[in-house]
């Protein structure tokens, strides 16, 4: 009794220590990513100014090149530039886009809302698909239902989300043409969900499904294997032995205990959604972060590429951190060391 109480008291402190340790470990990772991105970008032969000059015509003006480099601060020592970059990153001030000339923070802010909404909707789609499918697949292991679900989820990983997007648009065009006589396309101009919910959803539900299907595939497989493991546990056998309804065993005992790894996968995949959005936003012509990223790469807008990579990496690292901490909170059996 006493020992148990002591242990319970010690747990919060161990947890605090663990969180602190993990927090401190975030810094080297983020710093490393910043170093990598910054110096990779400097590996490119030539710089933005030379690219601009090359783009404007055949005549190469040394003077203009120098002025341009001075304007962007590219003539300063590399370490000074790096320090600037790190300071800017720490204060969320990434400077100006080399392409549009507007502050990068503004450019990102404009698009953040849309991408976040698609990401959240895709996550919801994924959960709604993954948990029932994974559970059924595990209960009916090695039957044709199981094979069907597994094929469906592997197809989700195999199908490029941009192709699914094209198919969805194609399907919408054809069905609306057949039913209403006029072809309907999802709107392109973004309106926030609290301004016009119907309009907003009619625009964003399609990219959310296209991204969410792929996302659900990983979660379905995780649900299935976690469920299979739990179904072999002693307490499930006990529940069966005392004659509990199979429905209740699944719902109350098995599902609850198998959700933990699923939550982890969903959390980690959420951080990866940014990658999925890059292609989906292109297909649906959505003005989000993913499209901005592709544009910055094609326009040689290094400042913007650098900033966006750092934003994605930061979101990714923080999500991983939150998932790790949540893990212990969700499962009291896990002890922090």
């Amino acid at each position: 009794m006493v020992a148990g109480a002591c242990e319970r008291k010690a747990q919060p402190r161990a947890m605090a220590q663990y969180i602190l340790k993990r927090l401190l470990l975030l810094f080297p990772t983020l710093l490393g990513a910043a170093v990598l991105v910054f110096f990779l970008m400097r590996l490119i032969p030539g710089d933005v100014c030379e690219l601009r000059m090359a783009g404007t015509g055949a005549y190469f003006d040394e003077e203009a090149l120098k002025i341009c480099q001075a304007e962007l601060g590219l003539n300063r020592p590399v370490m000074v530039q790096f320090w600037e970059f790190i300071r800017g990153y720490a204060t969320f001030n990434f400077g100006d886009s080399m392409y549009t000339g507007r502050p990068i923070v503004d450019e990102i802010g404009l698009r953040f809302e849309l991408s976040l909404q698609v990401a959240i909707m895709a996550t919801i789609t994924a959960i709604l698909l993954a948990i029932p499918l994974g559970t059924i697949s595990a209960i009916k292991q090695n039957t044709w239902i199981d094979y069907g679900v597994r094929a469906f989820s592997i197809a989700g990983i195999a199908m490029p989300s941009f192709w699914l997007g094209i198919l969805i648009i194609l399907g919408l065009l054809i069905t609306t043409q057949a039913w209403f006589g006029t072809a309907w396309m999802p709107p392109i101009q973004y309106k926030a969900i609290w301004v016009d919910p119907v309009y907003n959803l009619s625009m964003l539900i399609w990219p959310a499904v296209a991204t969410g299907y792929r996302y659900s595939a990983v979660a379905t497989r995780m649900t299935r294997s976690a469920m299979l493991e739990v179904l072999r546990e002693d307490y499930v056998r006990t529940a069966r032995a005392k004659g509990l309804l199979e429905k209740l065993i699944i719902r109350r005992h098995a599902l609850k205990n198998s959700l933990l790894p699923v939550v982890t996968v969903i959390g980690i995949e959420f951080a990866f959604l940014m990658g999925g959005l890059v292609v989906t936003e292109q297909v649906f012509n959505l003005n989000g972060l993913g499209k901005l990223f592709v544009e910055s790469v094609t326009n040689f807008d290094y400042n913007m590429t650098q900033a966006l990579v750092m934003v994605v990496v930061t979101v990714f690292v923080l999500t991983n951190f939150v998932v790790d901490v949540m893990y212990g909170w969700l499962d009291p059996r896990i002890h922090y060391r």
Partner: protein
Amino acid sequence: MASNPAYDAALDAPAEKPSLGARLLRLMRKQPLGTGGLLIVVIMVLAAAFAPWLSPYDPTANDFAAMHEAPGAEHWLGTDQFGRDLLARIIYGARTALVVGFVSALFGGTIGLVLGVASAYFGGRFDLFFQRVMDVFMAFPLIIMALAVVSIFGTGIQNVIIAITIPFVPRCARVVRSSALALRDIPFIDAARAMGYSHTRIILRHMVPNVMAPYLIMITAFVGQAILLEASLSYLGLGVQEPTPAWGLMLQGGAEEYAESAPWIAVFPGLAITLGVFGFNLFGDAVRDALDPKLRSQ
């Protein structure tokens, strides 16, 4: 730890060796999905190898008299906006997909294998530092890393391979390292060290052969991912460039523009990507089931 394939095969094999057909049948019954995957992979490899003989047309020849032609007897899968035969482009596109897939999976996996084993073998501070570096690389989502690399090296098939190889290295290194860590404590490594073998020899001759299972599992998984990544990059206009036939590239531009009037341009190349990656994934799953001793009992 390491399973001995010859021993396991001896246990599995019945007294009399059954015919090839019977063995295939048994494999199909045991691994229906894996056999299906293998079949798709074989078809894809054959299509790529014999493309000039199989392909009905030149994949890069424009034919402005036959633009947007629907699938029919002339052009089985129709033509695109330049009158190029879609079937020919899909058959030749298998070459691009397989070259990018295999080369980047092999390079990424092998570099990762050596680095992962070395990290586990040397341990200590080297291992700690190496792990932090891998953390940094892993913090980039696959396509973001590939896009960043493309922005530096530029487009084209070689650069696409580099862009896809780099993010694979840390993923393989991490998995291999964890298997190699368990190996390090087994006496035969100590014995090799006591014999005075060099680090390189111990790593390459003694440790690497014993982590082949996770390495092969990772590589088969990488091929499908690489094909998908190449398609995504090409679709974004940042991968393989025209007029090289590549599946992702075929979905760019014309596919969306003419979606309504010529849907076949959008449907068939995507189907090729999906089937190809699907095949490699199914096959990869079967390889994992066969090689992973933890899963074998199930």
